[in-house]
């Protein structure tokens, strides 16, 4: 019996955005770490320093950290804060005395070494990873981007220690997902880096087929190692929503009570907020919508330093301010399920394109409630909504069409039977995170040299 037969497979997970961060893709990272540890992996996560979350972005949610399996070991390699630090007292002595030279060095590094402002974190992650590897061998490195320094770090660890690595593209590095074109000029150093990290990757995961296809065309020599790992919804975060016994609509959408439309998610500039507000006003003329209210929950922009962006959204909300449209701010994670439970119709508003799925759509479906789409037709999220029996799709951003879809959803909410809700949830169940991650976990086992001998039907 060799050593691999007696110990758990060991993975170093490079995930800069990990709880308590509430930054980009943090739920996917959280779920992946929890899933792997639940499947018997020894998981070490390298993530952002606490100071980055608290002082630089202000984007954290301590309650979310409590949802990480305690068996997951969390490491926080240090990083330089050149791009974020604004307090002149905290500048290094070199930066304070030779600021122009410091700026030129910083820019040179981004232009010629690694075009990513998190590069210093990537490097310290490599150093920390090598130390841990020397003590006890890692079988696999899994890197999720952005930031793409994690990809470079995985590549470097592979070159230095020979550990196989897998890349997980939550977003695209070189593709402008919103305009369907390369995000960078042809001679940009990021292209060389992307080719380099892909060339040695054991597998490359993408969040939707559109992204996989684009990258497969761009890098055909790696195409066969590319796969899709969809996002999903996390049963443990929605546990307060009754899963088995759908509530009867007598309780919630009785004729006596006005319907409650809800948007829950981060509000960012670029979302069709104006169309949403206009359509809602139009829809309220339908008798079924009498007294209906639209409630918006969520942060304004992702980071607190995005003050301008938050202000822009706030202005949009003010401009769009319509009767019975209310903005409530962010919802603590434990109360998310309550918000869903108190809603009759969910509004799926996003600024995505054909490469954008969003994680929120899975959570929406898991509630088994009517969903109204407010987005363009070219969006990857449509693929997962197809087949959801309570999806009301206006087919674009035409205000009148959205209003009609809202009215239809309102009728559906009024007439909804427990059976319909169960059917909706059955569709959503296929996107439960553990189901989505199971095949990925098996693939990781193969790469790490621990093939899974469990029955796949389990």
């Amino acid at each position, binding site marked *: 019996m060799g050593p691999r037969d007696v110990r758990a497979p060991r993975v170093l997970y490079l995930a800069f955005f990990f709880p308590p961060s509430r930054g980009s893709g943090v739920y996917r990272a959280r779920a992946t770490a929890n899933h792997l540890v639940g499947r018997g992996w020894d998981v070490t996560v390298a993530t952002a320093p606490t100071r980055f979350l608290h002082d630089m972005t202000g984007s954290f949610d301590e309650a979310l950290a409590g949802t990480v399996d305690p068996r997951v070991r969390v490491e926080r390699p240090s990083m330089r804060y050149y791009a974020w*630090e*604004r*307090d*002149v007292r905290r500048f290094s002595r070199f*930066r*304070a*005395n030779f600021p122009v*030279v410091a700026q030129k060095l910083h820019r040179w590094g981004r232009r010629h070494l690694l075009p990513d402002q998190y590069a210093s974190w990537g490097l310290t992650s490599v150093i920390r990873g090598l130390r841990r590897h020397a003590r006890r061998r890692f079988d696999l490195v899994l890197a999720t981007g952005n930031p793409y320094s994690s990809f470079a770090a995985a590549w470097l660890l592979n070159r230095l220690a020979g550990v196989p690595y897998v890349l997980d593209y939550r977003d695209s590095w070189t593709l402008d997902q919103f305009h369907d074109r390369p995000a960078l000029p042809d001679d940009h150093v990021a292209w060389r880096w992307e080719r380099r990290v892909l060339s040695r990757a054991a597998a490359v995961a993408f969040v939707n087929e559109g992204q996989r296809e684009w990258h497969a065309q761009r890098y055909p020599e790696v195409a066969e190692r590319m796969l899709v790992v969809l996002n999903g919804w996390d049963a443990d975060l929605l546990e307060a929503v009754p899963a088995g016994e759908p509530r009867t609509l007598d309780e919630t959408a009785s004729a006596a009570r006005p319907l409650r439309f809800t948007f829950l998610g981060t509000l960012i500039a670029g979302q069709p907020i104006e169309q949403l507000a206009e359509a809602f006003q139009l829809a309220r003329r339908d008798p079924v919508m009498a007294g209906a209210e639209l409630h918006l929950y969520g942060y304004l922009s992702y980071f607190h330093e995005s*003050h301008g962006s938050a202000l822009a959204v706030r202005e949009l909300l003010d401009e769009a301010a319509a009767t019975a449209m209310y903005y409530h701010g962010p919802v603590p994670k434990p109360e998310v399920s309550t918000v869903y439970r108190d809603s009759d119709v969910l509004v799926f508003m996003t600024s995505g394109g054909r490469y954008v799925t969003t994680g929120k759509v899975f959570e929406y479906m898991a509630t088994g409630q009517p969903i109204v789409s407010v987005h363009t037709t070219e969006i990857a999220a449509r693929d997962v909504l197809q087949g959801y029996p309570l999806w009301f799709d206006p087919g674009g951003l035409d205000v009148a069409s959205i209003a009609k879809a809202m009215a239809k959803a309102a009728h559906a909410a009024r007439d909804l039977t427990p059976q319909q809700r169960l059917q909706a949830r059955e569709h959503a169940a296929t996107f439960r995170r553990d189901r989505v991650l199971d095949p990925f976990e098996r693939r990781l086992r193969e790469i790490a040299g621990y093939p899974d001998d469990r029955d796949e039907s389990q």
Partner: protein
Amino acid sequence: MTGAGPYLVVCLGSRSERAMRYVAQLLDAGVGVRLVLPDDAAVTAFWRDGTAQADRGLDVHALQHSDMDPLLARLVPGWLRRAILAVLRPWHLARHWRALAERVDVASAGRFVAADVTATTLVRRLARRYPHVVATAALELPAVIPGRAP
């Protein structure tokens, strides 16, 4: 800490549209500004530009009468001059502060703002001397604008 006093905005590099726009925004918001520019020529150009009209809330000061650049231009070749300026200019300008200090009330400033990278060295020195004043490189408007409801 965010003081209610005027902002001391230091802008010592080549003319920055962003910094000038910031000064105008502060004045629009009713925040007094003491603007420090590198030399007399920069002050003249500032008034000529008309970004901010002469205003009771605005004082503009030159750190020195003339730039070190013309002297360097005569003595050293271009590439070497650029290198010297990159290394020494922030430090050189910061040394001129002493002459200006008597004319500018720094202690009552609400905030020191390094409006460009060259201003960093001077603002850092001021920050060390006046530890009660916020010293920042962020071009932010105050969260609460004086005399206005939040």
